[in-house]
C-alpha cells in the first residue's frame, strides 16, 4: 500500500470503530481506550471522529432497534406522524432507549426503499407502505413475542 505509514494507521480508525460497534452494539469507553493505544491516537481524536458520524452510538442500543426513515419520499407520505405515534407509545424520543432496555428509536435519512414509502426498519427488517394500523400490529406482535419469551424463561 502506498500511503505513508502514519496516515495508513489513521485511515483504519473508521473501519475499526465500525467493527467495534458491530460486535458490542456501541462504542464503549473501554474500546476507545484500547483503540487509542492501538492506532497511536488520543482518545479525544477518536471521540471527535465518533461523534461526527451519525452511525456511531456511545450508549448501548435497546434489544429492538426501530429506525424511522425520514427520507423525502417517506416525509411526503407522512412518516413523521408514524414517528409521533411510536414516541407516544414507547415514551421516548429519537436517539433514546426505553428504560427497560427493550426498544431504541432512531430517525434515519433514507434507507433507499423510497418506492415503498413510508418505511420503518425494525431490527434490520424493512417494512414498507406503513400505516398507523400496520405499525400498531407490528409493535403488538413484538410485545407479544417478548412476553412469551419472558414467560418461557420464567417457567424454566
Amino acid at each position: 500500500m502506498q500511503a505513508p505509514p502514519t496516515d495508513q494507521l489513521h485511515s483504519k480508525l473508521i473501519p475499526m470503530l465500525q467493527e467495534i460497534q458491530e460486535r458490542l452494539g456501541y462504542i464503549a469507553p473501554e474500546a476507545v481506550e484500547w483503540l487509542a493505544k492501538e492506532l497511536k491516537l488520543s482518545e479525544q481524536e477518536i471521540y471527535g471522529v465518533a461523534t461526527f458520524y451519525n452511525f456511531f452510538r456511545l450508549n448501548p442500543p435497546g434489544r429492538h432497534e426501530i429506525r424511522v426513515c425520514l427520507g423525502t419520499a417517506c416525509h411526503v407520505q407522512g412518516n413523521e406522524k408514524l414517528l409521533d405515534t411510536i414516541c407516544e407509545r414507547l415514551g421516548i424520543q429519537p436517539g433514546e432507549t426505553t428504560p427497560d432496555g427493550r426498544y431504541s428509536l432512531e430517525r434515519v435519512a433514507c434507507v433507499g426503499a423510497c418506492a415503498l414509502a413510508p418505511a420503518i426498519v425494525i431490527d434490520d427488517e424493512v417494512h414498507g407502505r406503513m400505516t398507523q394500523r400496520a405499525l400498531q400490529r407490528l409493535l403488538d406482535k413484538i410485545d407479544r413475542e417478548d412476553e412469551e419469551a419472558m414467560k418461557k424463561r420464567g417457567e424454566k
Partner: protein
Amino acid sequence: MADEKIELLVCLGTGCESAKSDVLFAKLSDEIKKHKLENKAAVKRIGCHGLCQQGPVIAVEPEGLFYCQVKESDIEEIIQSHLIKGKPVERLFYEHDDGTRIPHYRDIPFYAKQTRVVLKNSGHIDPSKIDDYIAVGGYKGLERALKEMSPEEVIEEVYNSGLRGRGGAGFPTGLKWKFARSSPGDVKYAICNADEGDPGAFMDGSILVADPHSVLEGLSIAAYAIGAREAFIYVRHEYPSAVASLKKALKQSYERGFLGENILGTGFNLDIRMMEGAGAFVCGEETALMASIEGKRGMPRPRPPFPTEAGLWGKPTVINNVKSLAAVAIILREGWEWFKSIGTEGSPGTAIFSLTGKVKNTGLVEVPMGATLRHIIFDVGGGVGTGREFKAVQTGGPAGGCLPKEKLDLPVDFDSLREAGAIMGSGGMIVMDETTCMVDVARYFLSFTQQESCGKCTPCRMGTLEMLKILDKIREGRGEEGDIEKLLELCDTVVKGSLCGLGQNAPNPVLTTIKYFREEYEAHIRDKTCPAMVCRDLVKYVIDPDLCIGCGACSRICPTGAAQGEKKQAHHIEQDMCIKCGACLEVCPPKASAVLKIPISKTLADIKGGAQ
C-alpha cells in the same frame, strides 16, 4: 420451436426485498425441486428491475413476461399453471389504467417509454455471477482500454463522448481525468463516490446491487487512464445489500484476473478497496469524502487545490459517481460516437432518476438527457395517480429545488434545471400533489441540511438554523409580515458564505418554493391556514357525531387516548390530548367517514354549514 428453459427472475432490489421477495425466491426454488422441474425452469436472483411500485416482481424470460405484486400463495399457481401446463398466470400481469392486463414488461408504458443504457443489465443479470455480466459484453470495455489503447487515448475517448459527472455537478469526466493524468507524481488514486446520501434517491444503491461489475469496470478504466494503482469505493453504510453485492463482485474480479496483478496479461496492476461510510451526508462532497477515507472527521476544505492536483493523502485523485463510472464502461465498449448520439448536445447520454412520492409508478427510471419532466412524470410515471392534482416536482435532493406545473415541459439536463433554480443532482425525483405543503417541504429539506452541516462555515451552521426558526414559526401559525424577506436575505448570506456545495445549495428548496409558491407562504403567515392541510398546528381532527357509528376503531388505535366514546355511541376527540398523528382518520371505516381533518380556526359547524 424447441423448448427453451424458462428463467424466473426474482427481483431482490430494496423495494421488492422489503416486500419479502426473498421468501418468494426460496419458495420457488423449493417448489421447482419438489416438482422435479429443474430441467425446465430455473430461478435467478436479480437486482432492481425498476417498477418498485408493483413489487415484489418476477420477470419470466426469455419471453419477457412480468408478474406483479406476487404473494407467497401465488407460487403454487405459477408452478402448476405456468411451468407445468404452460399457461401463464394472467391475473398477476400488470393492470393497465383501462383494466386490461399487459403480459410483457416491454409493453408496460413505464418500461416502453424509457431508454435503458446504464440500467440495461439491471434486473436482467444475476449480479452475484460475474459470468452473467461477461455474457452481456461485460469487461469488454476494460479489455479494449488495456489492450488496444494508451491511457491518453482512453481519456480522449471519454472526453469525446461528452460524458458529464452524474453526481450532480456535471463536470466533464474526460477533462477531470486529463487534469489528474497531467498532475505530477507517481502515486495517484481513483475513487468511486457511492455515498448516495440524498434522501429520496436510490439509483446508485440499486446499480451497485443489480450490476456491481459495471461500476468496478468503470473504476478500473478510470484508474488505468489517470495512472492509479489503487482505487477506493466509498459506499453508504445504510445500504447493506449494496455492500454485500460489491464484496462479492470484488472477490470474483480478483479471482478472474480483472483486478490484482498483471490484469488480463497486460502488466497493469490495480487494487480496489471498499470503505463503508458512517452516516454523514456531507461525505458525499468530494473533499469531505477523502477526509473520511483518511479516517478523519468528514469536513470539506477549500478548493483549489482540486483533488486532481492534491486529493487523497495529498496525491492527485479522481472522484467519480457510480453512474458516471457505469457509463464509462459502456462508452469504452460501444465507442464515444454511439454515446454522444443519445441525449442533447450539451448533456449527452441518459439521466437516471428514482421516481417517488405522489406518482403512480414509483421506481427506477432512465431517459435520454433532454426528455421533459412531463415525459418522466406522466408518460413513464403514469401521473399522480390518486385523482389529485399535480403540484410540484423536486429534483436534486436537499440541494435542489421544487418546480411547479408551469415548468413541466422543461427539458431535463444539467443546464436547463439549474436555470430554473433546481439542479440535476444525483437523481432523486419526488412528485408532490395538492396534499403536499410547500412550506413544510422547504422546512423538511432545510432541517436536513441544518443537521448535516459539518459546522465549519458559520453562515451554513448558523444561517440555516435561523432560517429553520423562521420556517418553524410560519408553520406553527406565528409567521409575521417580513418573514419571507428575512428568509430571502438569509438565503443570500448562506449561499455566499459557504465553502462547499452543501451550504451553497442549502437555500435552494426555500428559494424555489418562495419563487413558485409564495402564496402558500402568505396563506400561512396572513390567514394562519395551511392550504394543503399538512402543518399540524394549523389543523385539527374532529369527529362528526351524525356520521359516527361508534365502532371504536379510533379509540382503540389512538396512542394518547384522545379519541373517546362509549361503544355504539358517537365518539369525540379531546383536542388537548391529541398529537395529530391522524391514526383515527386512517382507521375510521369508509362507510362512516366520520373523522375529519379541518383548519384549526374552524369548527365542525363551519365546515358542515359551508357544505350546505
